């Protein structure tokens, strides 16, 4: 079932706002990790606190979220995370 196919991606950041090393933070400077789940219907991303020493992501420490629906927003320009209780979805998706 194509609906079951999922692709995960992730990206690290040194801070919540763009800065000189946002594109390529060194491991020791990573403070946030953005984890994305993609299906044929949506892309859901949570940017959570990350410890580079324990290599641990803290899914209770959500810095920001993104939610785009493929059919209505294929270019991913309209973030629905805050509008659609994205936070609840996170609880639902929690591993």
């Amino acid at each position, binding site marked *: 079932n194509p609906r079951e196919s999922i692709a995960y991606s992730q990206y690290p950041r040194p801070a919540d*706002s763009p800065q000189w090393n*946002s*594109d*390529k933070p060194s*491991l020791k400077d990573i403070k946030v990790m953005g984890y994305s789940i993609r*299906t044929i219907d949506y892309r859901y991303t949570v*940017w959570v606190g990350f410890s580079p020493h324990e*290599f641990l992501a803290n899914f209770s420490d959500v810095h920001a979220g993104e939610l785009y629906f493929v059919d209505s927003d294929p270019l991913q320009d309209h973030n629905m995370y*805050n509008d659609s209780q994205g936070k609840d979805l996170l609880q639902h998706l929690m591993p």
Partner: protein
Amino acid sequence: TAPLNVLLIIVDDLRPSLGCYGDKLVRSPNIDQLASHSLLFQNAFAQQAVCAPSRVSFLTGRRPDTTRLYDFNSYWRVHAGNFSTLPQYFKENGYVTMSVGKVFHPGISSNYSDDSPYSWSIPPYHPSSEKYENTKTCRGPDGELHANLLCPVDIADVPEGTLPDKQSTEQAIRLLEKTKTSTRPFFLAVGYHKPHIPFRYPKEFQKLYPLENITLAPDPEVPAGLPPVAYNPWMDIRQREDVQALNLSVPYGPIPVDFQRKIRQSYFASISYLDTQVGHLLSALDDLQLANSTIIVFASDHGWALGEHGEWAKYSNFDITTRVPLMFYVPGRTAPLPEAGEKLFPYIDPFSSVQELMEPGRQVTDLVELLSLSPTLAGLAGLHVPPRCPVPSFHVELCREGQNLMKHFQVEDVEGDPHLRG
């Protein structure tokens, strides 16, 4: 029944702006021709949109959270676990494994050795002209040489009179010729540098993309609802002399629209230049009668933003930077075995006015991960597919975190067609 050879083509920073992915503007006839004989994955995604982490991930079959490489500064065998690699697995199964160009990311992340000797049977090849890639070899409007982002060159004018990807193609063809006398199957990985920045390509390719035909990205503004943490401030291209001269504001720019169009023009021109290199490589494989005994995989390590969401480069979680081209040609399975003397991959000149429409091959729309490349390739070559990894798997040398995509290669009616390999 002889084991199939493998030709793995990895392209640096190539988003699916290709004819076979529906792009109407880009001239990529040789890649489109490969696609017409392949199984093409429409929705394949990288696990992290930056070179070294993505490459180590799909070449070891582990996610970045397992390789623990999110930057460029560690070697997984020392830092996370002694994970086996895709070429190493083939080498341990009797293949002669060879690397040309940029397969592993050079430097610490591959132990300054492209992970030799584990992964490769012979020392990896790197084109000598690569050392000029980021030097002042771009002739600017002032007639002086600069280290620019936009760098269409006159081949006769550049050091050594050649470019890295040309040298890589020549070396790969030499190696293919040598394999003809070998009894062992080969696994040849060819890593092309373009369209990675700087956009340094033979200037004639610019003619394929007249500026008046180049539009801006469909959504060139930074979206209102985009969290600042999600935004990539494209710091790398800002280091280039021609971009520095624009005095752009940090972090959001914007880049003047005429320069945006020039960046897009040069990215597309770089793709067509790369396409010619792939075309020469595949036609040589054909000429050596290897097309009926070689699996060909074409993929990139991640995509690239060309102004979408006000962003440039990779470094984000957007589809535009994580979605990659991924296709597999398997002789007798994705295409009938070529008749004696039949050419499957004759070279096609992107400049020729007659761009015949290419019959697309079979396509899969399910979402898949670049992580699945290695187990799938092992399965297609008839090797035992490594087992799923336990969680955690730092202590396990050989396992896979990606899916095996073999189910997509089932042939509908094998009985109906004697050509198709069982």
